[in-house]
């Protein structure tokens, strides 16, 4: 079947909707990576077979007359901490931490009788939250991009179309000119979600104005930032939205071929995208003469091979061309000479997902979300030491406090909040004291305090985190991932890492802090690509906001968070020590002394922290603090 224009699409959508409506009850089982790991696939199979046994299963492709229950695998629901998750419509119940044993009850009690199972629902402060929408984690979000994620079967184009999918494509291709689209995107104020925040409409207009007959659209799904999984969840949970964004981008700039570059660690995203592309091809929404508009567009998927630097635009195109993914000097910019030396639109996954929303609702409506120079919403991956980890979406301009404490539910285990790391290895660490928590999140505000939205990874850290160690951690990442093409990055990150290792192992000096800052500044100012230019950010921001901790490491030789091995001391707890003398016998440097049946003690000055005594103590009385 081919859908040939806007009207045809609308009537097809109605037909799908009618057939979907036969599923008077729906079970949406999260098949995002997090819930899959918790065993959601087995739960899906079990619920499906239980319903089938009762003869109530309705698959949407069947033109069955009877009504019944639909069982589907969906993309990520976002509330990963509480997975495996199940949403049940029309009640909008959300069941958390579902186990295989719960399936019978879910089917008989909820699906047949329509009654909630309270023990599977969200409880907080003695309050029961029955529907998903009431739960504070969801209530305070604005889900535009994630609107479908967790609500539809991501492998079924009929569900997507029945919810208004491909309408934006039809509007764009059937009623608008290329230039008009570029103007709307410019007016919407959409800025690239890949980190830099470059205005998308401006980029598209630049590509449109090139007179090369061959142009490309590239979707950057590399998402190499550790602690980030937004793009993955969009590709897995709502792949058609990304495809739509790419088609519209191709039409707006005169490109007939699109490439999606997905990192190799995301096999499910690749699979879902492939399914989506084939379904769109079958319906004539992709390929030749899309919606009878005369416009041709094809999409190819390329899998990365594990290099963080390949997320950088020029490295990414080199990698698609079969070369080593090394950034090159610019200009010429990608909009002039990108993939295969042709003008190229290169945008992030989430950026493309914004496009259909803007075309459907218009730029003025879109601008109602966010702040004046930062419109729309942003998806963040909220992780680390926070109660509700998961995928969230908020309007630009929301404060960190709202995100971490209202949506995230604060810090677990009665610990204190220490910092939040935003923007991955290119970003910085923000903290409480500096009023950072009341900062409205946006590209501009974060830059002003030395951090970056980056791709949107947000890692919350509690009092047990050592900020010097965190800086070391990021430096070890960037050092490893530097492509090595330019000296400041190749050598600079290595030297910074060495200094940080020296400090965390207890051998740092005040001069080292000085040198660290100097190298950091130099690398920032002289590296060729964004990797090197931003590699120093975690170091610079921790030096600025957590200088005390650095001082404690180099001057007092202590690690306040008790993380750095070299700065810890080994002691015997006199209350637990039974005086068996095993530790004293195992110590290679005779640092332990005492008399039998009395608590033993360790001489700090002699101890070499080998840990041998800890292992042999039968009463677990020896600890590293």
């Amino acid at each position, binding site marked *: 079947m081919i859908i040939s224009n806007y009207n045809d699409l609308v009537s097809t959508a109605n037909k799908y909707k009618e057939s979907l409506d036969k599923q008077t009850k729906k079970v949406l089982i999260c098949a995002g*990576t*997090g819930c*899959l*790991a*918790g065993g959601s696939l087995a739960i899906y199979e079990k619920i499906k077979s239980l319903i089938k046994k009762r003869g109530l299963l309705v698959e949407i492709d069947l033109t069955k007359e009877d009504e019944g229950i639909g069982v589907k695998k969906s993309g990520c629901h976002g509330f*990963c*901490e509480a*997975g495996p998750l199940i949403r049940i419509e029309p009640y909008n119940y959300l069941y958390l931490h579902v186990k295989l044993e719960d399936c019978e009850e879910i089917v008989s009690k909820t699906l047949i009788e329509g009654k909630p199972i309270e023990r599977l629902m969200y409880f907080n402060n003695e309050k029961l939250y029955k529907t998903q929408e009431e739960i504070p984690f969801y209530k305070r979000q604005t889900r535009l991009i994630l609107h479908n994620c967790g609500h539809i079967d991501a492998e079924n184009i009929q569900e997507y179309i029945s919810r208004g999918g491909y309408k934006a494509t039809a509007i764009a291709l059937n009623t608008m000119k290329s230039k008009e689209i570029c103007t709307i995107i410019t007016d919407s104020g959409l800025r690239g979600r890949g980190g830099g925040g470059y205005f998308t409409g401006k980029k598209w207009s630049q590509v449109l104005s090139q007179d090369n007959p061959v142009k490309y659209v590239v979707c950057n799904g590399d*998402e*190499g*930032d*550790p*602690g*980030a*999984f937004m793009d*993955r969840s969009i590709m897995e949970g709502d792949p058609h939205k990304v495809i739509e964004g790419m088609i519209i981008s191709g039409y707006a700039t005169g490109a007939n071929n699109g490439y999606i570059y997905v990192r*190799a*660690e*995301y*096999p499910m995203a690749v699979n879902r995208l492939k399914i989506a592309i084939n379904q769109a091809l079958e319906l004539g929404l992709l390929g030749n003469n899309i919606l009878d508009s005369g416009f041709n567009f094809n999409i190819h998927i*390329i*899998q*990365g*091979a*594990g*290099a*963080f630097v390949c997320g950088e635009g020029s490295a990414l195109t080199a*990698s698609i*061309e*079969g*070369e*080593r*993914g090394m950034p090159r000097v610019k200009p010429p910019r990608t909009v002039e000479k990108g993939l295969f030396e042709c003008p190229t639109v290169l945008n992030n996954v989430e950026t493309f997902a914004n496009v259909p929303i803007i075309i459907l609702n218009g730029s003025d409506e879109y601008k109602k979300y966010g702040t004046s120079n930062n419109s729309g919403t942003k998806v963040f*991956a*909220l*992780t*680390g*030491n926070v109660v509700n*980890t*998961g*995928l969230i979406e908020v309007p630009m301009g929301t404060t960190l406090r709202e995100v971490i404490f209202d949506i995230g539910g604060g810090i677990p285990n009665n610990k204190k909040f220490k910092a939040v*790391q935003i923007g*991955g290895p290119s970003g910085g660490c923000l903290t409480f004291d500096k009023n950072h928590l009341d900062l409205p999140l946006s590209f501009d505000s974060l830059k002003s305090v030395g951090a970056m939205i980056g791709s949107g*990874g947000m*890692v919350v*850290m509690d009092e047990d*985190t050592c900020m010097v160690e*965190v800086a070391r*951690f*990021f430096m070890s*990442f960037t050092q490893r*991932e530097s*492509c090595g093409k330019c000296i400041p990055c190749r050598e600079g990150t290595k030297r910074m890492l060495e200094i940080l290792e020296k400090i965390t192992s207890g051998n740092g000096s005040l001069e080292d802090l000085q040198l660290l800052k100097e190298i950091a500044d130099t690398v920032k100012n002289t590296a060729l690509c964004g990797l090197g230019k931003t590699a120093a950010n975690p170091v610079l921001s921790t030096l600025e906001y957590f200088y005390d901790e650095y001082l404690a490491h180099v001057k007092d030789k202590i690690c306040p968070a008790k993380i750095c091995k070299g700065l810890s001391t080994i002691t015997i707890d006199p209350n637990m020590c039974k005086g068996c003398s095993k530790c004293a016998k195992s110590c290679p440097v005779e640092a332990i002394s005492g008399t039998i049946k009395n608590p033993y003690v360790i001489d700090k000055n002699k101890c070499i922290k080998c840990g041998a005594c800890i292992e042999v103590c039968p009463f677990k009385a020896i600890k590293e603090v």
Partner: protein
Amino acid sequence: MFNEVFKEKVNEIITRHNSDKKKLISIIQDVQKEYHYLPEEVLIYIADTLDISHAKIYGIATFYENFSLNQKGKNIIKVCDGTACHVRKSIPILNAIYKELGLNDEKNTTDDMIFTVETVSCLGACGLAPVITVNDYVYPKMTPEAVIELLNNIKKEEFR
């Protein structure tokens, strides 16, 4: 190892990609899927067939992290040490695995070729940190104790 059967497989992969030099990375990816690593003679064969220099193919095979020039064990354990996992204490898990299997950061494959242990910079399941995978199956919310139990279960399977 590089016998006629494998040569035919490699040829088939190269033809599937139209002997296109620009598809080199996809070709190497497919070959690695067959062998689980990239033996030197295979790389040389691909380079000669596609008429590219040995230096270039070696450059590419070593640049990308997912390519391996060494043979790996049967069970590949990936320990995530991304930011989210790191702040939720992934290193003690790695150390527990190293200790249990007698490995370290230099020697990461057991002599019996049963286990290879690698660290990775994010598996994209950060909400459930700390995370490890065994042959791409994700194990969430790991602890040093749980990982030892997991290893023991795998060993039981292997030596049954």
